[in-house]
């Protein structure tokens, strides 16, 4: 059992918030190339869900995946080093923002292909349980993924074989710029219902609400239940991708909607549950952690180009080089 831990939950959302803000600065400064999909505004979901997990559990995330990796407990310094393409990164600089993974803590990776995590996690959980573990899994995805056939097939497979996977839909209202109303026939929860998967909608801006819902689902799954779905309503505070900071797109989100959305801030909501002293202490601690992460990342060596394809084959097979 993971019990309520308001300070711990606040520490996680605050860490993700400050990590992402600093990462955006590093994108602007050119230290992170290729940009990122900031998790700003959605921190409460990763924090709440991961607070309900045990050591043997596994998760897979999305292109907007930093929050999931950090909430699960990955080292922020190695995470940031990965974003900066350094050899000390979680993936030795081979994955970057969209593929950050830490298999040692059950993070099978952020994944850049929308809707891909569901079937992978279903297989991983099934395999762990076959080997005698009590593993449950989490598949994070956005509202855009609910129209991907691969994910709907995974719903079917997990329900059919009663594989305990918590499907967490982070509904931030937009698939890049496409509003949910323009893309989703029926409803997200209705997709789960079609496969006999219990589904709840929760306020994704309240980390504690998410945690309680995830805890209840995980407990049911651990007691022998099949998959469940949580649709966490949330709002992305910043851009879909940092390229929007440089190339201004038409206002696809109405300005008043953005103001209303940002007003429900998971970091503030959770922070208000702490005493001023506790909150200030966490803020100082998080700042030191993120400062250290930035220093670590920027002082770490870049990988040697001679090793560009070092990890291509787990079997040790070597590929021909491309030169003449």
């Amino acid at each position, binding site marked *: 059992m993971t019990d309520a831990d308001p300070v711990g939950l606040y520490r996680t959302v605050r860490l993700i918030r400050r990590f992402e803000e600093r990462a955006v600065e590093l994108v602007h400064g050119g230290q992170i190339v290729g940009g990122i999909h900031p998790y700003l505004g959605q921190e409460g979901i990763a924090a709440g869900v991961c607070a309900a997990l045990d050591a043997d559990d596994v998760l897979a995330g999305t292109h907007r995946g930093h929050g999931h990796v950090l909430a699960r407990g990955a080292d922020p310094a190695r995470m940031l080093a990965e974003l900066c393409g350094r050899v000390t990164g979680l993936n030795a600089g081979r994955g970057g923002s969209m*593929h950050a993974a830490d298999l040692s803590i059950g993070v099978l990776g952020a994944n850049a292909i929308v809707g891909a995590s569901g*079937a992978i996690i279903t297989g991983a959980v099934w395999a762990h349980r076959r080997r005698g573990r009590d593993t449950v899994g989490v598949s994070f995805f956005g509202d855009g993924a609910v129209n991907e056939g691969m994910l709907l097939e995974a719903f*079917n497979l997990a329900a059919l074989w009663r594989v305990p996977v918590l499907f967490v839909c982070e509904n931030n209202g937009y698939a890049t710029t496409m509003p949910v109303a323009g893309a989703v026939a029926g409803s997200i929860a209705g997709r789960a219902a079609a496969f006999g998967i219990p589904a709840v909608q929760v306020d994704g801006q309240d980390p504690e609400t998410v945690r309680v819902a995830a805890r209840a689902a995980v407990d049911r799954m651990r007691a022998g239940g099949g998959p469940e779905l949580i649709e966490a309503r949330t709002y992305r505070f910043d851009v879909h991708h940092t390229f929007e900071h440089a190339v201004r797109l038409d206002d696809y989100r109405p300005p008043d909607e953005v103001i209303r959305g940002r007003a429900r801030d998971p970091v503030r909501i959770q922070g208000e549950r702490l005493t001023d002293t506790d909150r200030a202490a966490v803020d100082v601690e998080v700042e030191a952690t993120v400062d250290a992460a930035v220093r670590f990342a920027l002082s770490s060596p870049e990988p040697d180009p001679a090793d560009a394809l070092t990890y291509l084959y*787990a079997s040790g097979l070597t590929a021909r080089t491309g030169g003449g």
Partner: protein
Amino acid sequence: MPRLSYRRALTRALGDELARDEAVFLLGEDVQVGASLVTTGLAKRFGTERVRDTPLSEQAFTSFATGAALAGLRPVIEFQIPSLLFLVFEQIVNHAHKFPLMTGGQCRVPVTYLVPGSGSRTGWAGQHSDHPYSLFAHVGVVTVVPATPADAYGLLVTAIRHDDPVVVFAPAGAMDVRDDVDDLAPVPLGRGRIHRFGDDVTVVAIGHLVHDALAVAEELADQVSVEVFDPRTLYPFDIDGLTESVARTGRLVVLDDANRSCGMAAEIIASVVERVRLLAPPRRVTRPDGAVLPFAPALDRAVQPGRDQLATAIHLTMKDGS
């Protein structure tokens, strides 16, 4: 010496590996009854937990296998139809194949994708008759196309034990080949096999076409001395073995049951001529560019590379070089 069919060699390999290693399991469509006639009897022997029938959800069960592999198992997926590989190309290439590099070496994804009955099955028409092995060689997924029962057994065993994804094409044209086999053993990846030695020209033949090449070599034996090289693995390719052969014969013809443009034959020829100065321009006998196999049997045959075309190519390359 016991006679063994290619099909039963595959069954034997699956059974031996399921028995040898608890981490191995089989999944696919209709594998419990053995609709492909390859997985016959395995569900009875190993149980329906390890020989799993799936719903018709190729993308999900392909990635399910990736997840299971990440968690330490060794899944084998059977695809009844070669063109299903088009449907799951994304799951194999973008996920299973890329995870080791993208995670910086944190994982391995030992999944075997077995395609019994690849290529034309005569009468199965446009959507069931492809031979997309060059696609997997192109992206760097280990790709094997055994020609004989012994190699079918040995390469499937090796594929299952291999720590990276492997696609095993078992051509429809080879499934009923029978051989005297007394010693079944794993066959290493990336090692070709010379089925017939010759002096004048090296014919590289892929999969079931090895048997056609041997027949043509025999037919032409009083005119040309043909060496028949079976690469067995298309990726990684035994370029050293083939170079050694072509360096002796000086001539090269490739017989490849797949579309011409950007096909395996083109890659084989390019790799050889980078290393060897030939006596005559190399030739390839393939399906036409962009071929879609038509239904009517005569049309189906017309699009596949045939023995007459191979004999012609051999004669032309002999003439060019003299």
